[in-house]
């Protein structure tokens, strides 16, 4: 059964750095493909947007299996950004999303500065993305093989290059695997980002004591789900104080209350990720939960919640 959020008089529309969203809820990249796989459960046009799986220029094979492990209140993944390349997204997925009436935030990945730009250029030529979310958590040759999102200078360079390639809303997705997330946030902001999204997954590990082996083929992977929510909330709150940009908050959001907590900490919009695996209509549940909260608390416009934390 395809679900959409219930009717309400609460004003739910938000503006995420120039991307108008009918409500503050999108899907987290990599957990919802490009929406089609969830079309039996969710009316994708009823979400604020759909954020698509990370896309590279010519596609990537991804990592060896096993790629996931369940951990207490969370999961580890090392999918390795497997994707069929930007041409496939342009030909198959974005037209489907457009026909379904959904807004598309395209998550962009690259192994080099140049690859990010080429992906955006291909999408600009097609003209079907509503916004870009630049994933700076990929290992990058121009950053000496390390994750470029941990180095402020590399972040500044890649965001500037992406900025030159598009006038559409440019969201930069931050990795939490850094000492000071505010420093990276400032680098992205100064390079022209319209919004920041956070958090990507936290680097973690699971070990099978009996076999004395790592559970994942790649040994380490990204932690997501309810287990990361306190870390994500803390980072959204810190970044909200550090930069003057709208934020897309994520990390363990399962309910409307979770989403409201992120908005109070400073998020303009939120993304639902791992929760989709628990409940396929989780994104709709989150919108409904935000509506419940607003109606119960007498909040007429959801924008009142943004950064409304009382400290």
């Amino acid at each position: 059964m395809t679900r959409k959020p219930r009717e309400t008089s609460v004003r739910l529309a938000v503006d995420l750095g120039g991307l108008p969203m009918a409500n503050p809820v999108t899907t987290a990249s990599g957990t919802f493909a490009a929406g089609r796989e969830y079309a039996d459960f969710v009316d994708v046009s009823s979400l604020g947007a759909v954020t698509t799986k990370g896309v590279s220029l010519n596609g990537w094979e991804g990592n060896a299996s096993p790629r996931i492990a369940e951990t207490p209140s969370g999961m580890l993944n090392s999918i390795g950004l497997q994707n069929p390349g930007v041409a496939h997204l342009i030909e198959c997925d974005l037209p489907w999303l457009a026909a379904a009436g959904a807004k598309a935030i395209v998550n962009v990945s690259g192994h080099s500065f140049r690859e990010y730009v080429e992906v955006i250029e291909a999408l600009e030529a097609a003209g079907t993305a509503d916004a870009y979310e630049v994933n700076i958590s990929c290992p990058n040759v121009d950053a000496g093989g390390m994750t470029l999102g941990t180095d402020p200078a590399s972040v500044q360079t890649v965001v500037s290059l992406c900025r030159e390639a598009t006038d559409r809303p440019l969201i930069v997705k931050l990795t939490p695997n850094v000492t000071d997330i505010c420093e990276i946030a400032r680098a992205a902001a100064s390079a022209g980002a319209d919004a920041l999204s956070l958090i990507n997954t936290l680097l973690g590990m699971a070990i099978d004591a009996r076999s004395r082996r790592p559970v994942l083929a790649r040994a380490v992977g990204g932690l997501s789900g309810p287990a990361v929510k306190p870390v994500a909330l803390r980072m959204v709150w810190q970044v909200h104080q550090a930069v003057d940009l709208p934020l897309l908050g994520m990390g363990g959001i399962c309910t409307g209350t979770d989403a409201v907590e992120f908005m109070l900490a400073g998020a303009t919009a939120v993304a639902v990720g791992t929760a989709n695996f628990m409940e396929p209509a989780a994104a709709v549940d989150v919108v409904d939960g935000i509506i419940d909260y607003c109606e119960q608390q007498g909040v007429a416009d959801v924008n009142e919640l943004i950064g409304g934390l009382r400290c």
Partner: protein
Amino acid sequence: MAPLVNEHASILQNRPVGPGLHLLQLHMPVIARQVQPGQFVHMRIPGREGHILRRPFSIYDSDPEAGTCEILYQAVGSLTSYLPSLQEGEVEAIGPVGRTWSALERFREGSATRALLVGGGVGAAPLHLLARRLSEARLPFDVVLGAQTRDALVCLPRYERLCAAAPACSTDDGSFGFAGFCTPLVEERLAKGCTADGNPYDYVAVCGPEPLMRIVCGQAEAAGAYCELSLEKRMACGVGACLSCVVETVHGKKRSCVDGPIFDSREVVWA
């Protein structure tokens, strides 16, 4: 393919049937009506919220009129060991997920004339509905079942009711049937090339531990029979979105949840 549903399924029965083996009967009318042999449900088990992921289970049997399905499961880890304690209440099941065995289609188009179904351990579960459909259509098939002990051959009575010839069985400890793995029984049947009425097997379906499936696929291919297997991979979404469950194939990586779990043996690239 029928649209997927997330059905709230009430537990009608959940009882031990063998060593570490349990039979779960659920009321889930939509899935019961639509399920095809070999398909599975992706189940959310309540009461253990720290375990956030669903677990995939094949449909062992279904009764569309009564709106019920049965799952045969083995306690191997945290949730399958906890599940037996749920004697009432609801689980949530996404289904029916995945592709079905191509046996019936192959009989229809004439490329299959006699089928051999090989089930090792709980691998006998996803083959049972196929055996039922073949039997209802009066199509010729035989069954080989392997298990660790006699007590673990819990599917045998149901298969006996469906098969014209008694299933060939093996047990690791020799407590019933052939002593050892079931692969020599498969070899024997394929090597004979024909059965009493002279039909060679041209279709083999296998489900069980991966080493067993690998051997049976090799045996079937050597005998010139088309062979399908049902793979078990760890799954997060169960609907084709997350790429957790990919299998290496000659056509590149495929998702075992929705592009499988049933694969053509010649397609699979073994690790």
